[in-house]
């Protein structure tokens, strides 16, 4: 029986859409995975010596202090990225299999997921280093087993939490608050949790407690799904309660409003597109790396423009590069309807412009780092609106990756989106403004540099219609290929 299950899993894995890439990309992916593992190994081995050197002679103490955050972050990652296997069980329901067997298989499957395994690459080398450095074997073993158990506790907690968004956001809230309190020295949660983690080392037999908890959570998860092992209970797809919104305030955009309303609904109502909002918020804070001077390599003056473009353009880049893929699920409809490409594009363009302006306003806290920092953001925004908005739409026209709106997977970059044409288009997106700024900056002063970038941005607006008609031509000439590509969703 197990043989069949494993066979099915293997086929699901090797035949998944993300594996249907050419050999070169497959090799790249394997190399990527290999380096990830290498980094984790390096971290596991190196963490001990780095902490010993730089922070404290007893690295285990420091590690124990931050483990609480480690496990919370782990839970967040699992929530976002780990897919629950329970749903795939459906086709097995009516087959002559024992329900217990199927449920146990579903839960066991989560245990061997990459999200649990990769911790081994940190904890095993770290534990070995501890032994080499003369920590006692029994104590290290106890600590190690406790960590293992806690990772699996997270795994089973995630199974419960996964279907309940509210629980998840509560966890995030707690995490942010604790982090902030720690940062401002108000309340240090680690003071309470660090002794618990150290206890697993000093009193190794305590490891039995997390092991017991993990086992308890396992049986709870098992009972939960065994009880709800019906199509209308545990296996039911979550149905959203629809909210209707006529968005009449958008009517002022005239004929574009038809598409604009749709695009806003698209972003609001789909998991995958909501991620773009999340990304754009992240990008707003990306500039901190540059303007706080925390990374030396970024100290050159033209890096300001680089930062400015990303701070204001997070949404522009993460949304714009996938136009028209956002509409891939119903592309045949659009292609057989009387749509005006110009209005279609214009709606996406307006959306990016609005988001860019909004990000720029939110980013006004950069004034704290001096007027140059914020001017860089504003100038970056002007360049984004004038030049980059056209370029991302142009680049997007060549991308034929269908987007599954309902899943948040693959939100962090998509291999297929990197082709030569889009790569070439990043030159004017990022390098050109940096060069323009550098010319002004070194020829006269920083004000001239900023002014030149802003002027380029404004000049870019003049080419809007030209670029739109080019994109329209691409859409038309690539129509059949695009339709075929979008069909291959799964």
């Amino acid at each position: 029986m197990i043989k069949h299950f494993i066979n099915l899993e293997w086929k699901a894995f090797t035949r998944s859409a993300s594996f249907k890439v050419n050999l070169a990309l497959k090799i790249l992916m394997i190399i990527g995975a290999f380096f990830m593992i290498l980094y984790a190994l390096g971290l596991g081995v190196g963490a001990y010596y780095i902490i010993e050197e730089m922070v404290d002679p007893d690295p285990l103490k420091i590690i124990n202090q931050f483990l609480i955050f480690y496990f919370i972050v782990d839970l967040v990652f699992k929530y976002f990225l780990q897919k629950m296997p329970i749903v795939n069980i459906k086709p097995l329901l009516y087959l002559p299999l024992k329900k217990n067997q199927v449920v146990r298989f579903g839960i066991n499957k989560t245990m061997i997921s990459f999200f649990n395994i990769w911790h081994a690459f940190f904890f095993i080398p770290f534990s070995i280093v501890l032994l080499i450095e003369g920590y006692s074997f029994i104590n290290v073993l106890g600590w190690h087993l406790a960590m293992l158990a806690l990772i699996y506790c997270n795994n089973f907690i995630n199974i419960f939490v996964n279907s309940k968004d509210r629980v998840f956001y509560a966890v995030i809230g707690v995490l942010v608050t604790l982090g902030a309190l720690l940062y401002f020295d108000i309340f240090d949660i680690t003071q309470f949790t660090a002794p618990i983690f150290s206890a697993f080392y000093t009193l190794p037999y305590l490891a039995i407690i997390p092991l017991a908890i993990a086992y308890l959570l396992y049986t709870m998860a098992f009972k939960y799904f065994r009880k709800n092992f019906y199509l209308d209970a545990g296996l039911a797809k979550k149905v959203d309660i629809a909210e209707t919104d006529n968005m009449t305030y958008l009517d002022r955009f005239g004929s574009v409003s038809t598409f604009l309303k749709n695009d806003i609904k698209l972003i609001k109502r789909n998991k995958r597109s909501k991620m773009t909002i999340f990304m754009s918020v992240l990008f707003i804070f990306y500039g901190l790396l540059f303007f706080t001077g925390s990374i030396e390599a970024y100290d050159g003056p033209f890096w300001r423009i680089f930062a400015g473009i990303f701070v204001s353009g997070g949404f522009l880049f993460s949304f714009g590069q996938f136009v028209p893929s956002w509409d891939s699920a119903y592309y045949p409809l659009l292609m057989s309807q009387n749509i005006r490409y110009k209005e279609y594009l214009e709606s996406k363009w307006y959306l990016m412009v609005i988001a860019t302006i909004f990000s720029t306003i939110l980013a006004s806290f950069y004034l704290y780092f001096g007027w140059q920092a914020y001017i860089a953001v504003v100038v970056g925004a002007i360049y984004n609106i004038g030049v980059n908005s056209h370029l991302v739409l142009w680049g997007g026209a060549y991308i034929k990756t269908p987007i599954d709106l309902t899943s948040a997977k693959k939100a962090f970059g998509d291999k297929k989106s990197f082709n030569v044409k889009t790569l070439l288009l990043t030159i004017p997106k990022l390098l050109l403004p940096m060069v323009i700024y550098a010319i002004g900056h070194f020829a006269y002063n920083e004000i001239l540099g900023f002014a030149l970038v802003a002027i380029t941005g404004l000049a870019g607006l003049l080419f809007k219609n030209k670029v739109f008609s080019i994109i329209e031509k691409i859409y038309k000439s690539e129509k059949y290929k695009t339709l075929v590509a979008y069909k291959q969703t799964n």
Partner: protein
Amino acid sequence: MINTSNLSKTYNNNTVLKIDNLDIPKGQSFGLVGNNGAGKTTYFSLLLDLIQPTTGHIKNNNVLVNESEDWKPFTSAFIDETFLIGYLTPEEYFYFIGELRGQNKADVDALLAQFQDFFHGEILKQKKYLRDLSKGNQKKAGIVAALIGNPEVIILDEPFANLDPTTQIRLKQIIKDLAEKQGVTVLVSSHDLMHVTDVCERIVVLEKGNVIKDLETNPATLKELEAHFASGATVSQEEE
């Protein structure tokens, strides 16, 4: 209204559709039947310019569909769920299609009011997105959306599949009315010989991409079709 000439579609030396000549006059209700892989959906996709013909062309009201887009304003279709926008409620979807076809909200509401029976209270005001409706209800929404904006040509691929008997009967009446009373050219494909003979004035049988029968519907048509497909079944049994 629709003229097909020398049309063929070939994938890797495998010809999936070959129609030398097929004229569908205005206001005809036209049925396409055939087994799986006969080329029904391929023909409809060519008609909507969703795939390119290998040879030949289709003219829709004298517009070459693979060269001009002028057929779009008077043609509408529901092929499959890729014609639905999953994250919209049915109402939002109807208004969106309406706006694309130059109809305001009141126009769309007036049209929808005629389909209260057809919807059977399961489409409108359900607080559900299209993606969460059942297959049958999705189909109902898609079919009605294809009627928005007074199109002159309506293409429906397998409209009867997944529908309950009551809705099937209502849909048959709707299609008949469109062709007879409003002069709309309706193209329907189906596996259900009974439904097609009930609805269509003319039935074309496709087999492996070729037109092998072109019948004017009369009381004997159903028998003839049944005999034809039954003989296909015995032939393939003999082959095995």
